[in-house]
């Protein structure tokens, strides 16, 4: 009994320690962003890997989520003879929650593991030591380009998710007599500039969080291939949980001011 209390205690301490390390890394990354050298080529490289590389999976998920979600809503709405409501409800659901959360989770899985694996391998093969040794700051050289790329990509990927999601809904709604023009007209009535803004804020926060968590886990990797694997797994688990947590916290904070309702 005493043992398990102690274990819980040390797990809590370790969790806090970890969170502190991630926040410090995030701070260090932000501080280094504005100062030269900018290393544009590294940023472009990351934009390609993180952004371009995620388009396929994000749009595919967006399309099917939109379609299936719309079909389910339509079945319910037909009973109420309110099929027309599908456009506003889908648009709201996609822009406020489905887009940010699912895009966040997809990128957390795909990029969170990639960053942790890459930096973890560099750590255990002494490449990060070598870089430091040659006078190049690993945070500036390795983390900053990834963070910048994520911050740029996340809102765009979210937009892609929302658009493909709406496209999926339109296709689902067609057989119910709702044509595309009508759908879009109804959809546009529902979107508010603040919804878009909240989406961007969330996605930028997710981007920074994913880069900080994954880079932190990678840079702490120890003990060969096994250690790298562990840090990649941890990175995916933590980034995914943090996407959910941040989404909730940001919504709690922003909804009252920007959307005029409390959650």
């Amino acid at each position, binding site marked *: 009994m005493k043992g398990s209390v102690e274990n819980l205690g040390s797990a809590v301490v370790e969790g806090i320690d970890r969170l502190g390390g991630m926040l410090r890394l995030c701070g260090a990354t932000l501080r280094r962003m504005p100062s030269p*050298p900018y290393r544009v080529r590294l940023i472009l490289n990351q934009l390609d890997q993180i952004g371009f590389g995620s388009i396929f999976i994000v749009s595919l998920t967006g399309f099917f989520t939109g379609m299936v979600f719309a079909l389910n809503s339509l079945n319910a709405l037909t009973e109420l003879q309110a099929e027309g409501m599908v456009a506003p409800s889908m648009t709201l659901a996609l822009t406020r929650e489905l887009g940010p959360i699912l895009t966040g989770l997809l990128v957390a899985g795909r990029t969170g593991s990639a960053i942790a694996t890459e930096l973890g*391998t*560099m750590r255990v*093969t*002494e*490449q990060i*030591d*070598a*870089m*430091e*040794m*040659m*006078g*190049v700051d690993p945070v500036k*050289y390795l983390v900053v380009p990834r963070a910048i790329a994520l911050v740029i990509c996340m809102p765009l990927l979210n937009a892609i998710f929302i658009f493909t999601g709406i496209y999926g809904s339109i296709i689902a709604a067609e057989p119910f007599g709702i044509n595309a023009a009508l759908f879009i007209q109804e959809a546009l009535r529902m979107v508010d500039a603040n919804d878009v803004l909240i989406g961007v804020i969330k996605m930028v926060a997710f981007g920074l969080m994913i880069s900080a968590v994954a880079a932190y886990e990678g840079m702490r990797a120890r003990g060969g291939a096994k250690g790298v694997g562990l840090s990649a797994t941890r990175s995916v688990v933590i980034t995914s949980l943090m996407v959910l947590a941040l989404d909730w916290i940001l919504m709690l904070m922003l909804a009252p001011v920007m959307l005029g309702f409390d959650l």
Partner: protein
Amino acid sequence: MIHVQGLEKSFGDRPILLGVDLLCRTGETTVILGGSGAGKSVLMKHMVGLLTGDKGSVEVDGQQVGELDAAGLRALRDRVGMVFQQSALFDSMTVFENVAFPVTQAAREKLSPSELAERVHESLALFDLHDVDDLTPAELSGGMRKRVALARAIIRRPGIVLYDELTTGLDPVTTRQVDSMIQTARQKLGVTSVVISHDIGSAFRVADQIAFLHEGRILAHGRPEEMRRSEQPELKEFLSSWEPA
């Protein structure tokens, strides 16, 4: 000159170094011998501030490494080249980019492409590497990787070069080649070298001084002949595993 005094280091509650004293003189090659896990790599990383000791001090050319700020540390590392145990070539870059890295990224020297190429090729040629520019580290053999790492470590002509197990995993012929490269670097470039090794034969070939690290302490040090005659029991046992050809 590198002067280590009373250096202690633990990771968590595992003590690794228990008070290491070591003096590496300018222009000489000092070999640190010791078994696997003795803490040789850990000791070397203290010399350039990649690790910081719990107790004791490391002095390089009169400066306390532990007390340097970021700028001081960078200035120190500018004068030191290091070849890591696992070569530590950046595997996302070609051989050329790896060797050029200290010049283009670290010093950010503004060289024309042809000047840069000349310097990179000059460095590679010192270690008998030709036409390898566009290969990636994954395409190199272990021995070539070590030599590329050497070329990268000395491209900015450091006054001090640290070699972490340069010869482990190499065949005898390549080992001899690498040994002669350390001597080349010392003679042609006049560098102070610290070499980690558990290859006794190679240690006797290149060393001016040998230090024997065992269980966190330097148990014996001196010139190679002195070490060979030493009566220190752990060292005797360590050396007895090797028979000169």
